């Protein structure tokens, strides 16, 4: 075994802090929306999906910007960056409108 890949104390501290924040977020967020709306409310599923989805999505955005995979001053990267952001908003808005339409148009069945 070698210790060459061991992180510096600063990296360890940062890693532990990020992990702790993530775990708290994953544990607390769904409990928060359930205590607020209950499990039967259709917006609970929406907020669960987009709350966690937004976290994962923004992690992706952070990584590609931080690593230089996406450089806003290079070629078409800026265009694609905005496509990514607008795509997320597009799906979130479509699903929200879908729920609104589901709840507000009268049902004629028995």
């Amino acid at each position, binding site marked *: *075994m*070698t*210790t*060459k*890949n*061991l*992180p510096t104390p600063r990296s360890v501290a940062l890693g532990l802090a990020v992990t702790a924040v993530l775990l708290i977020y*994953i*544990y607390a967020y*769904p*409990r928060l929306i*359930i205590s607020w709306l209950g*499990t*039967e409310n*259709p917006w*609970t*599923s*929406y907020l*669960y*999906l987009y709350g*966690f*989805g*937004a976290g*994962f*999505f923004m992690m*992706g*955005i952070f*990584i*590609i910007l931080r*690593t*230089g*995979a*996406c450089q806003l001053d*290079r*070629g*078409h990267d800026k265009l*694609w960056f905005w*496509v*990514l952001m607008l*795509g*997320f908003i*597009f*799906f979130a808005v479509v*699903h929200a409108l*879908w*729920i609104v*339409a*589901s*709840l507000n*148009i*009268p*049902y*004629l*069945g*028995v």
Partner: protein
Amino acid sequence: MQEGFGIDLPLTATIVIGCIVVGYFILITGFGTYFSRFSRDINDFFFSGQRFAWWLAAASMVATGIGSYSYLKYSEQGFLTGTSSTMTYMNDWFIVPFFMFGWLPIIYFARVRSIPEYFERRFNRTARYIAVCIIMAYMFFYIGYNLFTIGVALQGMFGLPILYSVPVVAFFLGAYVTFGGQTAVIFTDLFQGVMLYIAGGLAIMAGIWALGGFSEWWAYLPESHRLPFVHLTDDPKFNTAGLFWGEALAGSIAFSFMNQGFIMRYLAIKSVHDGRKAALFNVIVTLPISAIIVGAVGWVAKSLVMKQAVEGGALEGINAVHIENTFHTFIVVTWETLHQNSILFGFVIAALTAALMSTIDTLINACAAIGIYDIYKPLIKPDADDKHYLKAARWASVIATVVGVLLVIWFAQQRGSLMQIHYKGIMVIIPSIVTTIFLGVFWKRFTAPAACISMLVGAVFTLITNWYPDWIDPLSRFVCGPDNDVYIYMRALFGMVVTGIFGVGISLFTQPRDAEEIAGLTVDTIDEGMAKYKGGKPNHTVGKKARHLPVAFDESLEHNVIRISPSTMETLKAEEGDLIYMADSRWYLGGLRSEHVKVAAPHDREDDAVLLSKATFEEAYLLDGKAVTLEKIF
């Protein structure tokens, strides 16, 4: 009379439908075989020479993403839970940044030919062959599963025994994939995608018409069936929490990152920029429309049943619809709403077979690619010529088809529903390899020993949860997921967490590879990958396409080098040595006649002709008298 799918087919209808299906098989086989002329070497055979326009690849993905089982499965889900059947198709956006700016440019610029090859270059040979085992298991599972499900459908409608019908279907499929390769797959899938949408749209419109219009359909759809999401945890087999962790994350990453068939489709596209367009189109347009096409008959069925209940019997113009077995929803509703018209129904059933063919042809081609690039070439015959490998690739396609057929015997002996077999298999196979790819791409300190051990340990632990599902309890409770010991999707989260913990832990105590060895294979080294791909410094200045340029021969030019006028250079914003994509100007060919070339110093002729050698002209499949369009890659 055949009774198998809840409908009674008269003999004449059976004959008409059978003739349409067989005719379709022959048509598509002939269509696919025609494209064998565009496969001269194994690069053409598997990747079509990285030449296609984004729209062609994206359109062909429509059919690839819809399996023969999709119509039956999602119509059933649509009937049971309504429009939330779209959830698995419309939750992919969260991983798109990782794909567009991470995985896609890495595999494209590194010229990775197979996912296992990436494992060897990023980690080591052991990791490659662990990946080969897992990915081959995944793909053979899918080939056998799709063949089996179409066998079940044919047995249900025509009474044909599965063990006879499947080899016949496989013969037609194997024929065009074996001779045509990726080009045949792309063009037949394009055609079949159109078929799928027309047939699915026909079935939906017939149902909406029977209901009395779109507003009637929506008005009679219960609120629970209108909502885009199901309850957070209630249904053990279909709940929002499980779908997020197992499907939106693990499933979507598997779909985009480790599905060799889809990866090959992206590698057939002319540039990463166009690959991003294809990915965008796929997630924003193709997947949502596909979700509607495969599931909407179930939504219509629910409204039909509710409206029948209100009116006290059959709706005007059609027989009463009774769905005793929800698995039969698609067949029963389509048959009735099409007024039992054999020709139209036959067309829809042909689309079901199209769904099968277009999914399996991609998988067969992908299996053959792994067979050649990961097994035959590195282990059995490393130094043969291209002609030999092309022949071997065709034999590999035959073998992949035969193995798929043999697996049908195994599927036919399984107990339990097909859904259970499917998800149990996939959710066990996916998590460990998906996590390993993800860590490999986005964490440069991830080491080879960590990759090998975590893949194996993750796979074994995930497998064990089939017998000990209570191992998943704590994790599921932690994320407020379902707590019911079924855990179809939560199993994937468990597998990813175990693999991740082992991967990170072992990496900290093992030696990473030198940065130079993995340049271009991690997200922070994409620039280096791009420079290697081009063979020089990339030119990112955005130019315009130069369209409709005449071609002239200049035999003094090297192979795959062109010279163009200074004004064309200016239009393209190109510099000497830049990589240029040259294609026949007719856009509808989608890049079928095209090639990547390098641009030399501009010529001093008075016209805007593109100068190139005869060999380059022939390699691009260009035609005499036809103009070309140029586009700078970088």
